[in-house]
């Protein structure tokens, strides 16, 4: 396997009960790149994202076919513990969802409970908050409740919380859709910075956002992968007519 590839999907089908949400998805995600998943609502892009850290396991009556290889290990094989996968594949959600705890405890929660090397928890908290460009804003209120922060700050806190686990991959499910333009810009800058060390896969409804921040873009429609290409190519000269129609706003 190409050493630049971190996740490989091979003929993946996914079902909610009887209905098929993803059809024969085969694609590779590359290391230290930002990959954007776009498409109209219900096209399966969020479902795909949640497959990558086995969050769909939480829903009763779902079924996965095909294989998803994370560094050559099939994450859906029987002997793989989903908890282990989630430590390596972090996730940021659509709505900021900090715990009703202090800022400090939000960050230290994961590392403490997963028996990571936590000799210097203070340093880890500081490092994670700095990576999420939140440190300067919260360094004096680490013991205040995270619920007092603004929406944009909360979302960066959630990113810091995910980073504290030192994951390889960061999944982001429309991370800015609940935020104002200024907070959105901050998060986008942050993504630019983070891709040096992490592989980022982001679902977005905002086409400009995909164009601005991603290296590669995948367009989904009705559970099918229509086109997966370099972002530049997708937004200037896509191979598939359908992609062009969607991007130029002719449907969707």
């Amino acid at each position: 396997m190409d050493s630049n590839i971190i996740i490989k999907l091979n003929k993946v089908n996914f079902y909610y009960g009887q209905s098929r949400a993803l059809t024969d998805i085969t694609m590779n995600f590359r290391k230290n790149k930002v990959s954007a998943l776009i498409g109209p609502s219900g096209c399966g892009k969020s479902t795909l994202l949640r497959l990558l850290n086995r969050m769909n396991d939480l829903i009763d009556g779902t079924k996965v076919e095909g294989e998803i290889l994370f560094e050559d290990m099939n994450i859906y094989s029987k002997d793989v513990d989903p908890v282990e996968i989630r430590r390596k594949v972090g996730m940021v959600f659509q709505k900021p969802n900090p715990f009703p705890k202090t800022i400090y405890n939000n960050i230290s929660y994961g590392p403490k409970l997963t028996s990571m090397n936590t000799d210097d928890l203070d340093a880890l908290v500081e490092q994670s908050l700095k990576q999420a460009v939140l440190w300067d804003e919260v360094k004096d209120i680490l013991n205040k409740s995270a619920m007092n922060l603004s929406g944009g700050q909360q979302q960066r806190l959630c990113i810091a919380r995910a980073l504290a686990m030192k994951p390889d991959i960061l999944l982001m499910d429309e991370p800015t859709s609940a935020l104002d333009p200024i907070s959105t810009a901050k998060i986008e800058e942050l993504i630019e910075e983070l891709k040096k060390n992490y592989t980022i896969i982001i679902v977005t409804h905002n086409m400009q956002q995909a164009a601005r921040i991603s290296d590669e873009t995948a367009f989904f429609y009705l559970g099918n992968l229509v086109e997966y290409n370099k972002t530049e190519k997708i937004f200037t000269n896509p191979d598939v007519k359908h992609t062009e129609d969607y991007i130029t706003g002719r449907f969707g």
Partner: protein
Amino acid sequence: MEDIMKSFKNNSMKWRYFKQALFFGAVRFSALIIALALGGILFYIIVNGIGAINWDFITKPPTDSMTKGGIMPAILGTIYLTIGAIAIGLPLGIASAIYLTEYAKQGRIIRLIKVGINCLAGVPSVVFGLFGLGSFVIFLKFGSSILSGSLTLGFLILPTIIGAAEEALKAVPQTFREASLSLGVSKWQTIYRIVLPNALPGILTGSILGIGRAAGETAPIMFTAAAYFTAKLPGSIFDEVMALPYHIYVLATAGTNIEATRPIQFGTVLVLVAVVLSIDLIAIIIRSYMRKNKRW
């Protein structure tokens, strides 16, 4: 034409205002009746009972075939039994609710279990008493004791606590669970560290109802824990105790001199109400302390 429209409009508005006033009035009236009934009962108990209350009444055992003296053993017995019932019912109820909401696959069997729990809530308390007599007093040979009574009362309040805990667990936002699980924290840790702390205030609120019921029930402890008379205080959980509800029942129906003990009966009722309220108050204080950090 315009006039007709106007008068029609006016009439229909008037009718709507009238309907609104009518329904508001009805709702207010219902609330008033409940408040009056509750206030009336309390007032009646206090007026009739306050005369019997003094320091000796709450610190001394009964004397002269329970026509004089205090009710201290019964107060203590009721407190023991209530605490015992909570100690048994609360952990068991919370554990059941966690299983039902967090672990069990939702399906026909779980629905059946939930129906069963609701039925349990409707079982007459005397049936619980007989169940306690058969299983704890006789079969497990605990005898008539604090332990048997606590177990019986614990099972009696179980459906209330399970129901309250289920609702409280469901009220914890799913996003908290997702956030925790997405960090690679295990399911049990997620429940223990995130879900349960956020559900506890709600669980306690529901449990207050159960606490009141445990303290006030007579039938379940009649065969399992309550003594007709014992001046001696219990030395272990295998001893019989007097209890306030049973004491009231005894004085009012089987006492040596029912009319003469009327004031003592009312005094005992007043003390029972006070004991239940103070146990509730403790739960409320714990709850408000835990709620301080809750905001989502």
